C-alpha cells in the first residue's frame, strides 16, 4: 500500500464524506472526522481529522485536530496537532499547526506558521 493511502474503508468510517460526485457549500462545526473528495466552498471546524482527498477542491478555512491535504485548498488550514501536505496537493493561503510536513512535489503558495507552545507553569 502506498504511504499516502489510508486503508480502503477509511471513508466509510468518517462521520462526514463528500465524494467527487458532490458539489457543496456551507459550514460544518462537528466532532467527527470529515473527508472531502469533491468541491466544497465554506468553513470546516472539527475536533477530529480532516482530509482533502485527491479530487477535493476546497475554498475556505479548515480548523481541525489533524489535516491531511492530497487535493487543492485555497484558505487557512489550522490544526491542533499537525498538517500533512502530500505531493499531489495544491495549497494556497495559510498553514498553521505545531507540526507541518510537506512532501516533495506539492505545489505550495502559502505562509506556514507554527504557533509557539504554551509555557509550562512550574
Amino acid at each position: 500500500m502506498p504511504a499516502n493511502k489510508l486503508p480502503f474503508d477509511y471513508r466509510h468510517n468518517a462521520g462526514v464524506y463528500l465524494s467527487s460526485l458532490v458539489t457543496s457549500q456551507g459550514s460544518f462545526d462537528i466532532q467527527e472526522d470529515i473527508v472531502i473528495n469533491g468541491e466544497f466552498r465554506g468553513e470546516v471546524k472539527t475536533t477530529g481529522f480532516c482530509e482533502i482527498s485527491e479530487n477535493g477542491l476546497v475554498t475556505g478555512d479548515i480548523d481541525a485536530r489533524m489535516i491531511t491535504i492530497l487535493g487543492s485548498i485555497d484558505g487557512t488550514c489550522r490544526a491542533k496537532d499537525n498538517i500533512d501536505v502530500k505531493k499531489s496537493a495544491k495549497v494556497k493561503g495559510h498553514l498553521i499547526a505545531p507540526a507541518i510536513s510537506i512532501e516533495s512535489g506539492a505545489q505550495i503558495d502559502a505562509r506556514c506558521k507554527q504557533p509557539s507552545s504554551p509555557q509550562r507553569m512550574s
Partner: protein
Amino acid sequence: MNSFFIQPTIADKTRDILADQLRQASQKTRVEAEVWHTADIRQGLQTALAQTSPTIVAVGSRTWFDRIITATHSLKASDLPAFAFIPFDTTRLHPLSPFIIRRGVNAAIGSLAARKVSHLTIFQVNNSLFTETCSIGQAESRGTFLAKLSLLLNNGNLTASSQASRIDLSLIESIQDEAPLLRLGIRSELINQSVSPSKAGLLPDKRTSLKTHRFEDALHIPIEKGSLISTEKLICLSHPEVDVSGTLNFQPYPKKLKFITSKNQPIRY
C-alpha cells in the same frame, strides 16, 4: 427503550412495589376509546389519543410494524398525535368483536403496558413516519439522477448537489441522550465497460466486453433536518406506497413511538 417485566422469582415485597409502579405506568398509557364498530377504530383511537396521550401509540406486535408504518396517513398540522390505530388485519390475529373492542381497547392497553413498553425514535419523510431505513430511488429506469439538497446540520448548514442512484435515510442511535440525528447516505451507481485486451484488435462483434456495475458512496452525513429536490420521479424503494414525489422533507420526528407489545412476544421484525 423501556421494558417492564415481572420475573416469577422476585421477592413478594419487591413484586408489590414493581406492580404498583407498573400500574401507575399503565395508567399513563391508558387510552379511553369508545369504539362500537371496527371501521371506527382508527378515528376512535385518534380522538382518544389527541385528548390524552403526549406520545404516539401503536398497539400490537412488532410483526405489524411494517403495516403500521407504511399505512400512515397524513400528519396533522397541529401538534396532536396523529399516528395511532390498530390495523384492521389485527382482527384476524386477535378476533375482536366490536363489543370486545369497546371494553378491550382500554383493558388491553392497560394490561399490555405492564408487560412491555418500548419507546422508539422515529423519523418523518414528508407525511410518513419511519422506524427503519427509508430508501429512495428512481421510479423505473436504473441509473443516476441529480439530487439537490438543502441540509441543516447539528452546527452548520450545507447546500449540495450530487449524482445519486439511491438515497438512504436512517436514524443515528445516540448513546448519549442527545437529540436524534438522521444519517443521509447517497450512493451512486457507476458502470464500467471493459474490452478484453487480447480481443481488442478484433472486429467489434468478436470482442468480449465486460460491463460491471458498482455503487460508490457519494455522500454520507449526519443531519438535523433536510430537503431534497430532484427533477426525476422518485419512489420509496423500501415502502413503495409512501409518496415521495415533489420536494422531499425529512427530519427526526419530535415524538417517540410508544410501542406496546403483548405478553413477552419474541421480536420478529
